[in-house]
């Protein structure tokens, strides 16, 4: 999927941690691209490597602990191996990140105003009052009602939704080209989540930001994403447009995820959970990472347990990592018929 308009291009990104128990293969050969104004969602459960991959992109994993390989191309530059000083200039200016828990991402001892002013002045040679003006505009833009009060407040004095707005304001204050949002609404109530997701969509339309959205919530994916990468056990197991992923999924893990969520619109269907638990990333199975939990592994036979499947094209712009043949998949999961354009 070579795409010349891609802003951020991640190619064969791998992350390994050395621990007392052995090497943890947190991310293996992850590749994706995201263009201006588009949203790519990375979906997966705890331990699938979705957060670690974005920390690696941002250069936020300490060199001593983590071994990062592969390429992260941003405007012709490779961010992997860029020295920390250069990364600091890039972070927050070109690529910004928002985190799940705004209380731990904001500094508890500094007022919101001071933190926003610092975020501006790190990257721009401007006077403090100009920076403050920028902070005020940005807080208004993210829908904070009493801006002057919030500028003087400490993070703990704000509600969860307000803190998340402050963090979004801080992330977007230098007009970055790429925004990585790591579970931005997981800690919030649904009515506040709806406000924040709407805000992200509005800001994206205004600034043409490319968003990498990391989430475990398929409802949020359905709402936000243009393209989706499903991760399991550190690897991308499926990569497709949002519509294809929901209506023509091609990988048994994705099937399992879709069948596990209770759906308000269907009545009394028994849930079909995925049996077993996610794999240990220290002793990664030799075959497919999902094989031990896959009910179709026996359909294919030995191969699932001995050979790690490649991420192969199933149609234009849709890739899946599975040994099942196209024919078998069609029989096992017919999909929503005829309306995928």
């Amino acid at each position, binding site marked *: 999927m070579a795409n010349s308009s891609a802003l951020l291009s991640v190619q064969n990104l791998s992350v390994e941690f050395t621990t007392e128990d052995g090497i943890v293969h947190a991310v293996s050969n992850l590749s994706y691209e995201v263009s201006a104004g588009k949203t790519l969602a990375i979906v997966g459960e705890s331990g699938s490597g979705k957060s670690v991959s974005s920390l690696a992109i941002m250069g936020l994993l300490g060199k001593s602990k983590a071994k990062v390989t592969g390429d992260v191309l941003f405007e012709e530059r490779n961010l992997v191996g860029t020295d920390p000083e250069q990364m600091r200039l890039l972070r927050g200016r070109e690529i910004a990140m928002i985190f799940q828990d705004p209380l731990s991402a904001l500094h508890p001892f500094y007022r919101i105003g001071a933190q926003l002013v610092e975020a501006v002045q790190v990257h721009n040679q401007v006077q403090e009052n100009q920076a403050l003006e920028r902070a005020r505009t940005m807080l208004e833009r993210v829908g904070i009602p009493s801006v002057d009060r919030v500028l003087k407040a400490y993070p703990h004095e704000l509600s969860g939704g307000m803190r998340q707005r402050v963090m979004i304001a801080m992330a977007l204050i230098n007009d970055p080209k790429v925004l990585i949002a790591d579970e931005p609404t997981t800690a919030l*109530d649904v009515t*506040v989540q709806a406000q924040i997701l709407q805000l992200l969509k509005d800001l994206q339309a205004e600034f043409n930001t490319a968003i990498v959205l990391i989430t475990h919530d398929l*409802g949020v994916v*359905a709402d936000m994403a243009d393209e989706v990468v499903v991760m399991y056990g550190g690897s991308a197991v499926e990569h497709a447009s949002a519509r294809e992923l929901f209506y023509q999924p091609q990988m048994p893990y994705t099937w399992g995820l879709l069948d596990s*969520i*209770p*759906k308000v*619109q269907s009545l009394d269907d028994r*849930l079909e959970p995925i049996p077993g638990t996610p794999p240990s990333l220290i002793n990664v199975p030799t075959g497919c990472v999902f094989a031990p939990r896959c009910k179709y592994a026996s359909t294919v036979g030995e191969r699932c347990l001995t050979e790690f499947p490649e991420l192969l094209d199933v149609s234009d712009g849709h890739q899946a990592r599975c040994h099942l043949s196209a024919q078998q998949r069609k029989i096992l999961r017919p999909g929503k018929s005829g309306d995928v354009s």
Partner: protein
Amino acid sequence: MTEPIMRVTNVTKHFPISEGIFRQRQSGAVRAVDGISFEVMPGETLGLVGESGCGKSTAGRTILRLVEPTSGTVEFAGNDITKLAKRDLVPLRRDLQMIFQDPFSSLNPRHTIGDIIAAPFKVQKVKPTGGIQQAVQDLLERVGLNPEHYNRYPGDFSGGQRQRIGIARAIALQPKFIVCDEPVSALDVSIQAQVLNLLEDIQNDYGIAYLFVAHDLSVVHHISDRVAVMYLGKIMEIASRDDLFATSMHPYTHALMSAVPIADPDLERNRERIILKGELPSPSNPPSGCVFNTRCPKKTDLCVSSVPELRQISPGHEVACHYPEVISSATVHPAATGMDFIG
């Protein structure tokens, strides 16, 4: 007609706020639960749904007297348990159990899971036929864990497995009523589905009634027979599951339902969403009149001056709103069209 196993009448829980360093005096109260009433029938699941701070967890705990109610009565099988002395509560714990949200802090890390699941038998001095160890192993098997693992510690298990241990402990004495406080919200979706199925199976086998406290509407929809919606310590609407999702009448219920994202891009992107303005008011200083009036799109003067009582609109469907109304919820929530959208 069968009698309810649990009848909760006008229960309140106010946590006092004190001021002063030397002489503490009460300067106010957090009205966590502010006069709630409902019934639960034997073998039924009542979902209690709401956002953080609405008092749903406190309500669950107050009903079991893990937190003492400020006023109101809780009748279990016809007997008011709010007046009982602490020691008279002990025998009732056989029938009233709880499953907690956090599978990490609710199990003692220094006890083996065998000890944890055996505790109810020992506390209640119940001698199961075949001995306690056999009973523990049967329970482990029942909740889908390996019965050989009774000697292991909670630290050896994943979140989903720990939640199964918590369930085994809760059902050890075959209780009649369990408060499930956000039992699946700490779990990944694939594991969440396993635990929800287990809770359903256990209910079918033993006829246990659940009060299922959760913030996730789709989970509540999946497991409940009836649903109560809470906001700022009060019940806003209570109805059978299908009535609530098809013909909800309270503006807060509408907003809550429209805020839940649906895992279907076409549906999700083609519906109207009611985005509530503002934030939850403080329960120590709730708005006058209807507690929802600060965020309600239908607010009038009446809503500020008078508290709407929870009143019956149709059989089994009660709403606390001056202007209850079914809105064309096809745009709010697809359940209203009665169609199964996911092929």
